[in-house]
């Protein structure tokens, strides 16, 4: 086990610098070093070390309950919001330790989109998108307008809502609401975007739109997406990490992982023998 990618030592995280363009990414934008997460005494993530390269879509796959969501929630410090939840190990963003920064500052740099669309129900489309900026103290109308339009365009929602931007956000369809939530996350100009099964509550057409969007988002953002859908990982992600029972089993370029998995567990999961 030691030395394989299943359990890299903290000193040498599973670096995939060689897998993506080496000039661009010498080291990961976001790095995990022996990260473990707990709910009370229960260990949900077991010493995971990973490099998430910049401007890349990385998928995290695995069966239900394997800790995918827990792992992604450690990255923007949402895990610790749960009572009695704790984290050990290191997580760094451009070399800065996330757990030494202020949690709110971390979350402004690392945005998140959730399983179910969760727009603020009493707010208009515009106010939903502007919510994060207003938290940051932006009051200038022109700046807000510009950011809202840019974010809605970035989330591929602008054309559908521009006629009624001051209408309530919850009147939109499920897929539109999810893109509204993406726009809301983009508005604060994060560096990393975490997506926790963003399509699990959506129909296939809405899913296709979001997947299309994810492929364009990586030009500006580092995207990390949790999915239970392996086809989705194959469609959107350059890199894939397979998680099982809280342990990182395999990490590599998505194509390799699906065609020539190194680990037996990965192969069994991909071929549908469990999970």
């Amino acid at each position, binding site marked *: 086990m030691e030395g394989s990618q299943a359990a890299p030592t903290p000193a040498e995280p599973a670096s995939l610098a060689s897998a993506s363009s080496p000039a661009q990414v010498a080291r990961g934008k976001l790095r995990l070093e022996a990260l473990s997460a707990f709910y009370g005494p229960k260990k949900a993530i077991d010493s995971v070390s990973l490099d998430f390269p910049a401007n890349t879509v990385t998928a995290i796959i695995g069966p239900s309950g394997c800790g995918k969501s827990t792992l992604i929630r450690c990255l923007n410090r949402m895990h610790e919001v749960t009572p009695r939840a704790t984290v050990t190990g290191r997580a760094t963003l451009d070399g800065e330790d996330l757990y030494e920064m202020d949690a709110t500052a971390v*979350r402004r740099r690392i945005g998140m989109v959730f399983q179910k669309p*969760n727009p603020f129900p009493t707010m*208009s489309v515009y106010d939903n998108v502007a919510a994060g900026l207003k938290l940051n103290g932006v009051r200038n109308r022109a700046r807000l307008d510009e950011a809202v339009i840019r974010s809605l365009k970035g989330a591929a929602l602008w054309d559908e809502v521009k006629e009624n931007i001051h209408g309530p956000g*919850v009147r939109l369809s499920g897929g539109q609401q999810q893109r509204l939530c993406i726009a809301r996350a983009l508005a604060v100009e994060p560096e990393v975007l975490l997506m926790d099964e963003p399509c699990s509550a959506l129909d296939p057409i809405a899913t296709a739109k979001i997947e299309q969007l994810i492929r364009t988002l990586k030009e500006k953002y580092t995207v990390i997406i949790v999915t239970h859908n392996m086809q989705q990982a194959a469609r959107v992600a350059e890199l894939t990490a397979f998680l099982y029972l809280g342990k990182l089993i395999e990490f590599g370029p998505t194509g390799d992982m699906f065609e020539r998995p190194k680990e037996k567990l990965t192969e069994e999961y991909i071929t549908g023998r469990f999970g």
Partner: protein
Amino acid sequence: MPDPPTTPPRDRRRRWNRALDFFFHWGTAAVAASLVALFLTEILFLTQQSWPTITRYGFGFITGSVWNPNPPTPVFGAWPYIVGTLLTSSLAMLLAVPLSLGVAVFLSEEAPGWLRAPLGSLVELLVAVPSVVYGLWGIFVLEPIMRFTIEPDLHATLGQVPGLGGAFSGPSAGGDVLTASVVLAIMIVPTVTAISRESMRAVPEAQREAALSLGATRWETTRLGVIPYARSGIIGACILGLGRALGETMAVTMTIGNSNHVPGSLFLPGQTIASAIANEFNNSFSPLERAGLIEAGLVLLIITVLVNVAARLLVRGLFRTDAGGATVE
């Protein structure tokens, strides 16, 4: 007979279920209808019983300031009571709503886990404390404090503000409008708190996470994710509190000082409709005064309805653009 001698058990059950459904539907409808009937009967009864004064005094009953049942010329004007009712209730709301929301936010969002359940139960227990107990506390504990400390202090501060000073002037009676309002406020805080807290607890975690993921602090999360979502419940809580304040009788009667004049200052005794009815009913020997008191009850009922409708319209006007918090998805 075309029917077979024995019905198959499955059919029998289906028929039984259909009958149950029928009774369920019409049973619940009947209960609901009886509520409407009760309300209408009440209005009918009050109108009928107060007919003598309605026909004799007309609108003078509402605008008149003198309540004198004695012959030879009995006069019934409920204006001081109406003013007292509206004044004490709005003052009580002014004091109670911010306090209640603060407690509710603390209980729902901020308090450590081990404190939430016991403190929440305590609040619910306070809802059930009889008003006569609040009244006793008002007389023996609050009145002296109001009379010798709070009211003189208010006079020295707010009393000096031009335009506002009149309300905080004059000698402190102790048993007065302000004391009654404070007692009322203390009485409705548990009600407003308990219901607001429930509606905040019902806010999905996803709303809090949405705010947190944008980098919101705890207070910002409450302001952005929790309060708007729980809004309709919070407003409902306030309307219930207001209803209790408008109609509260015992505690107010014990602390308001019972004077049949429009109070010139908050430090002077007054009277609410409810306290007037409680005070006068046993002493009302003439049928005309009895009719007058019943008409006062009718006026109180109408005020309650109007205030409720106004509160709802106000709320709808304030938040026109949205689809309402509790009914998302």
